[in-house]
């Protein structure tokens, strides 16, 4: 081997080693849903490897488990889940199989995003008669940017606890996220101000937080009860309500049956608006702020 190639080889080995070492130093983060994942990436920056289990276009209530999910959960230093039963159908058996004590509830490596957040629509009494209701309240809270700030703080705390060396950077990133949200909130509020107080129809009850934040009343749903497919009589009732309240928009998520919404829209003159809870589900929404921006723009365009 010539000296020149030897130096090259040594350099290559060194490079490999450093990458390996830095890769080692990155903390493994698993997020159940893409919204938590997007915020985790902003807080963690280059110090974390974020894996998101559910796809953005997948219904968060039903996620198909694959072997890599268990592998990732085994190796996770931090797990971020909603903590509000949204993932109750699929996360518990995965965790049972992963048996990773670092991400057990109560450990610093477990972020339950809903902790410390006052959830809406907490049922006064739990009966199955009310449909597929979550006992802890409505779990679709991330679409309220102010709640997202609180979740970002949770995530930054967890990262700082698990990886104290980079704590300062996590705090800075969290501040940055907060500042961006604060700045954009004004803009978003202004865009939607002309339509404030209007009622909207949604396929599923995932938008009370968004409605609350931006001044809309999202209380008519195409589903007669959460998780139950629309029945003809219920749709007739929805159409009557829409006409009476002059509702102009129907919110649909990617995994809902758009045809039903279109049919209702046809008979009421309302518009179907593409909404999504998760960054990446709509084109051009790679991060959280872009997603909310898109939702605001789509809604404003439909109500114009």
């Amino acid at each position, binding site marked *: 081997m010539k000296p020149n190639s030897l130096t090259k080889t040594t350099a290559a080995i060194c490079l490999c080693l450093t990458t390996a070492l830095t890769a080692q130093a990155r903390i493994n983060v698993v997020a159940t849903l893409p919204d938590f994942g997007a915020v985790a990436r902003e807080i963690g920056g280059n110090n974390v490897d974020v894996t998101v289990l559910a796809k953005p276009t997948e219904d968060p209530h039903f996620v198909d488990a694959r072997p890599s999910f268990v592998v990732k959960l085994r190796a996770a230093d931090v797990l971020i889940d909603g903590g509000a039963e949204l993932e109750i159908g699929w996360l518990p058996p995965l965790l049972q199989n992963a048996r990773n004590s670092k991400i057990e509830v109560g450990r610093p490596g477990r972020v339950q995003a809903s902790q410390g957040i006052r959830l809406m629509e907490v049922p006064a009494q739990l009966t199955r008669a009310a449909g597929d209701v979550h006992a802890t309240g409505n779990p679709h809270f991330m679409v309220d940017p102010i709640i997202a700030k609180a979740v970002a703080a949770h995530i930054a705390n967890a990262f700082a606890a698990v990886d104290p060396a980079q704590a300062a950077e996590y705090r800075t990133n969290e501040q940055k996220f907060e500042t961006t949200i604060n700045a954009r909130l004004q803009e978003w509020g202004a865009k939607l101000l002309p339509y404030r107080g209007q009622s909207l129809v949604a396929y599923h009850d995932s938008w009370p937080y968004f409605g609350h934040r931006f001044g809309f009343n999202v209380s008519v749903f195409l589903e007669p009860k959460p998780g*139950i497919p629309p029945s003809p009589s219920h749709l007739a009732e929805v159409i009557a309500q829409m006409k009476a309240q002059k509702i102009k928009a129907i919110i649909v998520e990617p995994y809902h049956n758009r045809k039903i919404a279109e049919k209702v829209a046809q008979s009421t003159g309302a518009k179907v608006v593409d909404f999504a809870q998760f960054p990446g589900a709509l084109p051009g929404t790679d991060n959280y702020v872009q997603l909310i921006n898109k939702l605001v723009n789509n809604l404003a365009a439909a109500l114009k």
Partner: protein
Amino acid sequence: MWEVMFWPIVVCVLLPWLLVYLGLHVVRRGIIFIDIAMAQMASLGICVAVLLHLRLDGWPAFAIALGFTLLGAAIFSVTGKRSSQIPQEAVIGISYVVAAAAAVLLLSRAAEGDEEIKNMLVGNILLVSPLDVWKCFALFLLVGIVHFLLRRTFLLVSFDRDAAYERGWRVRWWDFLFYALFGLVVTSFVRIAGVLLIFSYLIVPAVCGINLADSLGKRFLIGCLVALIGGIGGLFLSFQWDLPSGAAIVCTFGVLLVLLGAIGIWRRCSASG
């Protein structure tokens, strides 16, 4: 890989033998879709339990599901006449769609979202818990023992019904017992591994065995081998390429069936030519 796939592999080793054996009966009787119809009857039972606001993992819910499975067994044994214009498969198909539609109706009244129910009824082989595997194995052993003790009767009733009738047996009662045991096996395996897998485990190994051998014993052995290779091979591929495990096993079965079918044709050709 070992840590993640250990229990799924245990399922693929410990449980399929009984399904392969029952599959030989089912294919012989020409009632291919009975497993799906039975599973649907059981889920109708669970829907009733939901309507009654019962806990889905408790004994009462299980008893109702079992009751509906037995109802299915009764329907299939009563309609399985010795000679009839209406094939048994038609009754099975009708039971399936009516049970499925009734479940939709009940759920729309019960107003329980299907998350929990789906979870309850259709398991994912990747996420089996050791306790479930052992419970299912114990049940399979029991059913296996009953089938072993009564093997002559069951085999005659499935494979040579006319002879059974001529001997003056109460074929319908034996049918009922067969279907009832079958229903137990199906519902417990579906909860571990899902509908796709139970169907494949019942039909594919049996078809492969029938294709390649003539005696029941050989067919059973070939079937068990196919079940083992397909199950473990499918799990391996599922891990390698990160695919949903149940679907990966089913597709492996499909490929195996084509390969073995080709071997069968080649053998017959070379035997005749």
